[in-house]
């Protein structure tokens, strides 16, 4: 495999806190188009898991079908992966986590995979707040089937052949917040720093981390007239905050020129800290009402692409906690724990006699 992965020699030696090389977090060489936003996202995922020192053997990568859903092959080669069927990654991930709650689940999907065919499972996953990272590589189209509109395409956006989309886009972040996800953010594949911080925060979070990442499709949706092109997003993006992340195993240093009160320090489930530096107005990410407000305004506004951390609830029970499962992963239970003794069968038979 190593032959097919190309790591910059510089990094080769770098070792993370659990003693693994950067190399260990890579995957196969991408077969996606050169310049595809999805490739940048893969890079951020590799960096985030490496720098956080997550043990890849305890990570599962899951996806549906699409160019985006192929990308798990291109990162975290030491983790088990499940490339499932179109739009159904949420249920497969749910099952895997029920079976083994100690795993760290990373689901990668596309806007078609999630918002079109996957809408039902997406909604119910958000509602359950299953502990996982749910990352949408959002290019407003179906890349793998050659660029048809998806349900996140904006009104007025055009296909290469000129067809204009008239249906309003579905806002995955607004939906996720309304339905119960406990960490909701939007980013851009072209913003390395913001995306890296957000992915790290998602790793640190306990509950569903729904991240919608605008990720341009250079082959089918990067033309003028598209509102998901690199140039369009670069021109119309506005950041809700500057997002910084400090892992639990590091010290927090605020750089000098941040004036007091301008930064919100949010402590995450694993002790890491999310630093949200105000840009225009201050946003309290625990304010669900306000978060929805922001997204609604954006939707009605003139094609502004708002990115940042919209919502975070540290306290919310996740689905596995609700189910009251034993701490030990169910798959590790021995026969004596899962098969009741003979006396139980006898008791039941007695009742039925």
């Amino acid at each position, binding site marked *: 495999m190593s032959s097919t992965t190309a790591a910059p020699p510089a990094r080769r030696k770098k070792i993370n806190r659990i003693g693994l090389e950067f190399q260990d977090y890579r995957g196969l060489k991408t077969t996606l188009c050169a310049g595809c936003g999805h490739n940048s996202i893969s890079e951020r995922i590799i960096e985030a898991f490496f720098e956080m020192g997550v043990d890849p053997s305890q990570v599962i990568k899951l996806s549906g079908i699409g160019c985006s859903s192929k990308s798990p092959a291109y990162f975290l080669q030491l983790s*088990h992966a499940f490339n499932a069927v179109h739009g159904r990654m949420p249920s497969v991930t749910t099952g895997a986590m029920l079976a083994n709650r100690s795993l760290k689940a990373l689901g990668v999907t596309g806007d078609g995979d999630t918002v079109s065919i996957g809408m*039902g499972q997406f909604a119910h996953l958000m509602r359950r707040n299953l502990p996982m990272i749910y990352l949408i590589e959002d290019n407003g189209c179906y890349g793998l089937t050659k660029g048809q509109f998806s349900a996140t395409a904006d009104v007025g956006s055009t296909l290469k052949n000129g067809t204009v989309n008239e249906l309003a886009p579905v806002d995955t972040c607004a939906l996720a917040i309304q339905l119960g996800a406990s960490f909701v953010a939007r980013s851009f594949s072209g913003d390395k720093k913001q995306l890296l911080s957000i992915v790290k925060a998602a790793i640190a979070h306990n509950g569903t981390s729904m991240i919608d990442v605008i990720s341009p499709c250079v082959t089918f949706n990067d033309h003028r007239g598209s509102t998901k092109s690199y140039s369009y997003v670069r021109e119309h993006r506005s950041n809700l905050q500057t997002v910084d992340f400090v892992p639990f195993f590091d010290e927090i240093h605020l750089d000098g020129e941040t004036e007091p009160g301008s930064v919100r320090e949010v402590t995450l489930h694993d002790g890491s800290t999310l630093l949200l530096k105000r840009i225009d107005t201050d946003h309290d990410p625990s304010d669900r009402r306000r978060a929805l407000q922001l997204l609604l305004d954006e939707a009605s506004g003139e094609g502004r692409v708002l990115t940042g951390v919209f919502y975070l609830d540290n306290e919310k029970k996740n689905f596995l906690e609700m189910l009251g499962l034993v701490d030990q992963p169910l798959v590790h239970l021995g026969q004596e724990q*899962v098969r009741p003794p003979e006396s139980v*069968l006898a008791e039941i038979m007695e009742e039925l*006699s």
Partner: protein
Amino acid sequence: MSSVETALVGEAAPEADEPVVNDFSIQVATVNGSGSQTANLVLLRSLFQMGIPVSGKNLFPSNIAGLPTWYTIRTNKKGYIGRKKEIDFLVAMNPETAREDTLDLPPRAAVVYDLPLKLDAVRTDLHFYQIPFDELVKPVCPDAKLRRLVRNIIYDGVLAWLLGIELEEIRKALFKQFPTKPKAAELNWAAVRVGYEFAKESLVKADPYRVERMNATQGKIIIEGNTSAALGALFAGVTVVTWYPITPSSSLAETLTDYCHRYRMDPETGKATFAIVQAEDEIASIGMAVGAGWAGARAMTATAGPGISLMSEFIGLGYFAEIPVVIFDVQRMGPSTGLPTRTSQGDLLNCATLSHGDTKHPLLIPSSPEECFQMGMQAFDLAEQLQTPVFVMLDLDLGMNYWMSDPFEYPEGPLKRGKVLTAEDLDRLRAFHRYQDIDGDGICHRTLPGTEHRLAAYFTRGTGHNQNAQYSERPSDWVRNIDRLARKFETARAMMPRPVVDVNEKAAVGLIGCGTSHYAIQESRQQLFEEHKLNTSYARVKAYPFNSEIADFIDRHDRVYVVDQNRDAQLRELIRREIPARLGPKVLSMRYYGGLPIDARTVTDDVVHQEGL
């Protein structure tokens, strides 16, 4: 219609017939949601407690309350407990159907009816017993609101006197029904006694039907197939159950849930050693089960036809990505929504090759509560050993009706978890090829997510892959892989439970059936012999794929009738696919698909007709 004519022809009042002991059928006609369920179960149980072979079948509508429901109880000293076509004893409580129910009776049958129905005016060739239920219930149950629910059990008392059922057994059965509600039990008990006393005082026994204590149910239990299958899963050590409600499978998942809460909470922490999730639909429930099976859990779902159709895509993934998962299909009458509360064997063909492309899936087909239990366990072993979806094919008759059964035997030996490599194994082997057929049986080794080893990870996918689970479009990789899957299916063949074969050396005719057809076939064989001197052999299929014994069975007979509870002869179709073509011409078909449990007479008449007897 014919019965109507019978009615119009005035007949003389029946003579006092020969007594008929422990060999008749009772039909109770009520409306659903009227609490008749209790009265009927008490009746069933008390006969059972008297040692008489008995079966009860609930014929209910696909709605919640207010529509006609029939409950038929059959006693048979010889032990035939399949549905009996003719009704000998009718309890008519439902004004909507009373007249028609009465018209459908054979001459000389007995009818217990609610006074206002005036059924004695309908026919003259029956034995009528008129009961003033409303009048009788008043004294017992001052609270008018409760009467609707208590009223029905009065007929238990009446029948007790008419049929000679021991009151004490009724009492026992009754209190077993209300373990936690003594007051309700007492109230009902009073109602039973009122019915009994009334009958004793004012009725004249004229019909021939009676029961007598026997010893044929010693140590047996009474149980539904769904409960039995749930117990199978419980003792198989199931850990993840994901389901979506659908008749007639819901009670399987719900009973399992109850048992898990009773017996699968960790003693120290009081936490659950299982996860049961009611999913948002069947695509999600099978998706979760597949995810759980992939991660190493003993995972299952339970559903019925419409759910099976929705699971089709995921089952194809499970087959191709080789993921263990168990699907309980409690078959109801299709196509489409069809008749949700009627039984059928209509999903056999669909499940055997569910999903697009070349797919084949093992089916287990239980005929009894015991087999529901055994196969319910075995399915998990097979799924994990074969790394593939395994179906357990119940039907509504087996799943939702009460059956006599021997108590279940506690399983011996360890759970069979299949070829799973641990970190230690990987250390030893120093290499891991997910899809390499090392043992030549088509079954490869897998690792579970979370295995702490650099070699453990692999990429699971529904797309073409090579032996290392890497994406591949090479024709040679593709062909090698699905040829191996075909080889694996042959391995499965040898692991499936063998058919139960009873060869009659004198027989030129053989019968083949599966599932609940068993009871009708068993009884029909006797009818064929007694009424037509036709000797028959019998092979009961317990699973698909079949093994050579079925071909041998067909080979040694001139004609073989395959009994199917579906229109398109699905079992025969599956058999035809797998036997040498030269045997094909011998394989004939007998089908019933009216939605009621198949009965012996129907089988007999059809075979007799085809045999030209």
